[in-house]
């Protein structure tokens, strides 16, 4: 705390006492100057303000942490000593006091003053003492509260990071296995797929630990993933992807869409091999962002019959949506006729304020 606040506040208290005494004196018919009263009270509390500030500045932890023993053994003597010291200084400033008495020497005046004011001074000291303890308790409480909040955030971050990590290696190994297989049958395709996989890794590494990314980055990732799958399924899948342009800068959890698309491939294309379709549609719905992935296939029965194949994908997405958005994020899975399955994610729309994209560079 700034010393001016301390001292200013205590002088203000002193002036209030002066006003009180002035009003009392008038009521009882005494005439005593307000200015004089203000000087006396103001000086007393100014001295206490300085003393308290010094205590706060240099002896805070001692005062705040003192047990009962220390209070009696150290702080009580300290309070007596400080009260006497304060009076000694005060008396120096006001040689006319006590008023209406014949002139006295310094020690007489001091004794007189101590008789009248010592208890008051002790009371002021102990009030300040209690006030310090209160402030310290409050500060400690606030500190604990912010620490708890920070820990909570860190915990959520750690869980989100763990959930994200589950995704990467899983599809990385699948892709490498596809490449290993293609190497024997179609070197050119294996070559292309390896390049695509490197691009995916590069994007992932560039992103680092970031949890929320602009939608166009997530879409870019999914496009690349789909191109790689297209390689794997020899172009048999009819893929469509549409995104409302105003949503390019909307923030979504990184890698939220890829597991759903992967899931669509697992449950659709590997089963039926004729007219296979995958449609991704991302649009705004009021204050929400809705991403839906529809795939042709064999309906939902398949998903329920083979729970082990559902893997970590959708459960992971659901967990992450809950951690990020609580009740405001959702994932729904439903059959929409002809064996088609629709997976929809909805989350609160949140735009990326700072467009930190690296722009293109032009020659000439």
């Amino acid at each position: 705390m700034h010393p001016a606040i301390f001292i200013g506040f205590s002088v203000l208290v002193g002036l209030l006492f002066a006003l009180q005494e002035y009003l009392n004196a008038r009521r009882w018919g005494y005439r005593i100057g307000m200015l004089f009263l203000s000087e006396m009270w103001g000086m007393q509390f100014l001295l206490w303000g300085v003393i308290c500030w010094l205590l706060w500045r240099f002896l805070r932890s001692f005062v705040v942490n003192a047990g009962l023993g220390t209070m009696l053994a150290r702080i009580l003597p300290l309070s007596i000593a400080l009260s006497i010291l304060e009076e000694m200084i005060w008396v120096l400033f006001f040689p006319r006091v006590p008023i209406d008495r014949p002139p006295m020497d310094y020690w007489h005046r001091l004794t007189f003053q101590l008789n009248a004011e010592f208890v008051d001074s002790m009371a002021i000291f102990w009030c300040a003492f209690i006030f310090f303890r209160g402030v310290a308790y409050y500060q400690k409480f606030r500190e604990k509260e912010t620490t708890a909040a920070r820990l909570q955030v860190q915990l959520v971050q750690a869980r989100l990071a763990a959930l994200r990590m589950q995704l990467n290696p899983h599809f990385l190994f699948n892709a490498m296995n596809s490449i290993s297989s293609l190497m024997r049958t179609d070197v050119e395709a294996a070559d292309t797929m390896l390049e695509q996989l490197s691009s995916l890794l590069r994007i992932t590494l560039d992103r680092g630990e970031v949890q929320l990314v602009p939608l166009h980055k997530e879409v870019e990732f999914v496009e690349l993933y789909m191109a790689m799958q297209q390689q794997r399924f020899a172009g048999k899948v009819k893929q469509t992807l549409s995104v409302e342009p105003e949503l390019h800068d909307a923030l979504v959890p990184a890698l939220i869409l890829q597991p759903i698309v992967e899931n669509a491939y697992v449950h659709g294309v590997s089963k039926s091999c004729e007219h296979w379709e995958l449609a991704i549609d991302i649009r705004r719905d009021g204050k929400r962002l809705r991403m839906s992935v529809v795939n042709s296939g064999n309906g939902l029965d398949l998903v329920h019959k083979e729970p082990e194949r559902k893997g970590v994908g959708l459960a992971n997405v659901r967990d992450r949506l809950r951690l990020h958005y609580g009740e405001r994020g959702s994932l729904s899975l439903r059959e929409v006729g002809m064996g088609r399955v629709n997976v929809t994610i909805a989350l609160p729309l949140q735009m990326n304020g700072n467009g930190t994209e690296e722009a293109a560079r032009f020659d000439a």
Partner: protein
Amino acid sequence: MTIQVVLADDEILARQKLRLLLREQADCEVVGECATAAETVALVHATHPDVVFLDIRMPDMDGFDVVDALSAEPEFTMPRIVFTTAYDQYAVRAFDVHAVDYLLKPFAAKRLRTTLQRIRERANGAPAESARRNGERYTSRIVFKSRGRILFLPVSEIRWIAAEENYVRISTESETHLLRETMAHLEERFDPQLFLRVHRSAIVNLQHVKEVRTESDGETAVILINGQKVPMSRSYRSRIQGLLRH
């Protein structure tokens, strides 16, 4: 005309890959290989190749030092440089020293063929250079990152550009790329002899325009050679017809 090539990479397998892939190209000949920057400078002096495939991180100096050393000599005709590297952070620097391309390892054979095609076109002074001949005022190439790759895209390969809010979508023959750019800026940087704004949210490359058609509902559209239809505002109609008649 044969394209004479020098391969500079400290990794044997990296050179082998390029050697094998280039062997499939009838018009390419590998005239030398080297593993350090110093060797590269010496070999390029000795063989005067058309193209150097240059790794950026090499044991002694880096690829840019090689470029500096070569371009320091006034008499020497600089070979075209294709950087090959696993690092993506040097792309802009490579672009600034006028490298032909930037191959991020691992690259597919297809990607290398695109590079070679660009080298052939440049050798023939084909479209890529046409903007440059127009007094250097306009962009002939742009560099950007898309889907984890670095692209040095000659603007001649752009078919059309669509505005998407704070972004533009650039369509080439086989792909589209989303860039954080404005239509106004592109219009300013692209040669107006080649690129024409036909709509608030569309710019077309005139080299890829087949015709302008009025639909039955009275709307006008630009039809590209590949059949793609781009919407057009009526007010632009006279301008495009004037330009197409050339």
